[in-house]
């Protein structure tokens, strides 16, 4: 299938994803995943990672593959609201859970506040790690709200986290940005955190 550069640059492409195998294969398992509020019924080998299920079988390519070993965070998605490296977990393990990917957060005409903040503060350059950064940041803000401590937390007796830059940096250090947009990322997260606190 041929695409024009105009289509590609506008993001105006069909979803894609691999078609189900023609013949019944005994190695395949029926897997139902609930992603961004939609149910997807798949036939997958048990060894297929959640990341590959999203990208290669369902065609939700917003979730990125960076290292495929849990070191870079590009594949971060939310599973029942918790951040997970989707390359390190099998798709079959997530039946019955609520999976949220970047596609489930906001659309170009209706951005999630974190997405808008990343644009405003230029929290990315190439954009490849960005979906993972944003999903990670979203779960991180929830962790902060529930008072989870981090390695950078100085006072473990306090119920509330004092979200310093050091705290944000520590809590986001599982997401690599090789373009080095960390300052914009920290400022984006702080911005949304302040907005939420103000509400």
């Amino acid at each position, binding site marked *: 299938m041929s695409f024009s*550069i105009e289509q590609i640059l506008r993001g105006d492409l069909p979803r894609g994803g691999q078609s189900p195998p023609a013949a019944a294969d005994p190695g395949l398992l029926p897997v139902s995943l609930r992603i961004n509020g939609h149910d997807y019924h798949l036939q997958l080998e048990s060894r297929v990672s959640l990341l590959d299920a999203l990208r290669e079988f369902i065609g939700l390519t917003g979730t990125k593959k960076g290292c495929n070993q849990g070191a870079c965070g590009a594949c971060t998605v939310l599973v029942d609201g918790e951040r997970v490296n989707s390359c390190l977990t099998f798709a079959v393990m997530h039946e019955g859970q609520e999976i949220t990917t970047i596609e489930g957060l906001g659309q170009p005409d209706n951005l999630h506040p974190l997405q808008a903040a990343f644009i405003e503060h230029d929290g990315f350059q190439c*954009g490849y790690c960005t979906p993972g950064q944003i999903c990670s940041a979203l779960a991180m803000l929830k962790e902060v709200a529930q008072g989870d401590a981090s390695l950078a937390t100085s006072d473990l007796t306090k119920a509330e986290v004092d979200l310093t830059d050091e705290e944000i940096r520590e809590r986001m250090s599982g997401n690599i940005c*090789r373009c080095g947009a960390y300052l914009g990322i920290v400022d984006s997260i702080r911005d949304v955190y302040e907005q939420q606190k103000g509400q």
Partner: protein
Amino acid sequence: MKTKEVGRPLDRVDGCLKVTGQARYTAEIPVGQVAYGVLVRSTIAKGRIVAYDTKAAEQAPGVLAVITHENAPKRHPTKEFDPSDKEPSASPTTLLVLNTDEVSWHGQPVAVVVAETLDQAEHAAALVRVSYAEAEPARLSLVAEKPRAFVPEKVLNEKPEVKQGNAEEALAAAPFKIDYTYTTPPYSHNAIEAHNTLAYWEGEDQLIVYDSTQYIFGVRKMLSEMFALSEENVRVVSAFVGGAFGSKGRAWPHVGLTAMAAKVVGRPVKVDLPRKDMFYMVGPRTPSEQRVALGADAEGRLQAVIHTGTTASSTSNTFAEHFSFVTRHLYASANILIQQKLVRLDMVPNTFMRAPGEGIGTFALESAMDELAYALRLDPIELRLRNEPGKDPTMHVPFSSRHLKECFAQGAEKFGWNQRNPEPRSQREGPWLIGQGVASAFYPANKRSAEVKVHISIDDTVVLQSATHEMGTGTATVQAQNAADQLGLPVGKVRFEYGDSLLPKANGSFGSTTTITVGGAVELACEDLKRQLLRLAVKHPSSPLHEASYDDLEARDNGLFYKDHPTQGETYAAILAREGKDSLEAQASFPAFLKEKLEEMAYSFHSFGAQFCEVRVHEDTGEVLVSRWVGVYDCGTILNEKTARSQFLGSVTMGIGMALWEETKWDLRDGRIPNSSLSEYHVPVAVGLPRIEVHALSIPDPHTPLGAHGAGEIAVTGAAAAIANAVYHATGKRIRNLPITPDKLL
């Protein structure tokens, strides 16, 4: 009012697609019926393949093909990237892997397995057995190979040696001198998007390749040579690129192999290089060993400057990384000696990495300048200012624009440099020793060539087209701003189409050349368009422009208006409507005129900067933390404050990684890379970095389009030296071997 988009911190035009996951990178293009390719790596560094056992792989479920050199279709040799070619190929090597039994580096692809699913291909690839006959011991150590080092014919397009006066004699006679050796290790680029290729054939001779590249036409050239196709029959698309940093300027072996595999299985094949393959099949930055010797008189004027050293290339490429270029242009001296040597190693071909040449060259030179400043008991900024050249010290032509002094002045003030006690080991907070360091930044401001087509419609929408690249550099955004100003339209009216070989030709996006090259072509194409529009208008007595000449006019308010009569003029829509036209287009090439080509020789084009940093070194553990950073850069007009700032921030970040953490380890016994993953090759992460502060002078260069220079590499240069200099100031220990890991400080 004339609109002014250039300079504004406009949000990235592709921002919305990127933050919503809608931007499709190479591996995500839904071409349909895709089969997956996985490459098998050699496990020896040098020798021949004796036999394969592919039976188990062939019988594994889902496998479509197991391609080895025994059954691979023959491809044609390709020329290695040569910067003196008019249109160089993107091939990093002359070796045609899988069309030879020769193994010339550990990790070289020796087979390709294609299967229905990725997991099937990965599993089957693990079943391929290869036996080898190892040749003589592999040559893997730059140091051990030094007796066989040679002076290459050229270094990029320059001479490998420069001799002015007699530097060795002047050094011997100088009252103050230093003479040391500095080393840098191999580094891996590690863009987070891997090198990916997705290829398919239409008929026998139409090849379509989606490739994560920063050099579309170089890839097209290589593939057309490899498969004996006319260049027009190869389409290369590279729309969204997830970081490049130089390594995506070459088409590594998987690119040709993906196209070959697609031919073998008769359907689209995708190869998404695993991270480990990114270390083995994508060339790193060379290791280097550099001698810098500086001699000065009592006032600190340089009497002798010597910068010599050795880098490595592989047995199948010739790239000598130009570490010595900085010393040819940065400081004045009557006696300069520069020499580069090269050794050949049995390793993956080396390549360009962000700020090639100057990235490692400034580490040596700018560390040495700091050492000389201590020898002279002179402030290191003052030493640099005393050696500011009136003109380029080896080209003997004026600088097109050089404001290094202003960079130091602004930076020193913002950083508070004057409060610094120069004595090493003079500041402490508990176990932390604190120090401040400074270094010059330096990078060329070269131009390449580009063609741009501009198309205006009667509704004032403008489409710019050029096959340049957007790897996060901001090109798409700043060139839309540029065209908006050239045509006097709001930037929202401009759409930039790039990243496809079907578009007008542009050079590779590397060497910080894209901004001015494409910017110059946009300027010329827009001028041509405006002149065409004016020609349409002057024909008609009813047009307010009937008697106008081009120089009387300016573009604003979606049309052409008299400079001295703000209300008199005509909109583009009106001009087109009168002619009964819906649209008009123009195309231009940059550089277009002899004037630009002559200017290229009449001036030395470079960017400058001053890097200031503070480090904390833990006395017991040797851990180094960068606690403060101020960088001030002189790279012409800033076209977009927001995207340029990100380029500077990202460059400093990469410089910090280079200084403190990054090193691609080579096992010198067999060429294995023991830290070939992102958990063991440490790139900078959010934690451990300071709130980096960057500023640009934004003084226009009178001799470049828009007065601009590229901004993507200058801030890498000098960064490692500033850190090493700060570490010396903190601890009294001079580390001349990067990276500055704790063991070197204990």
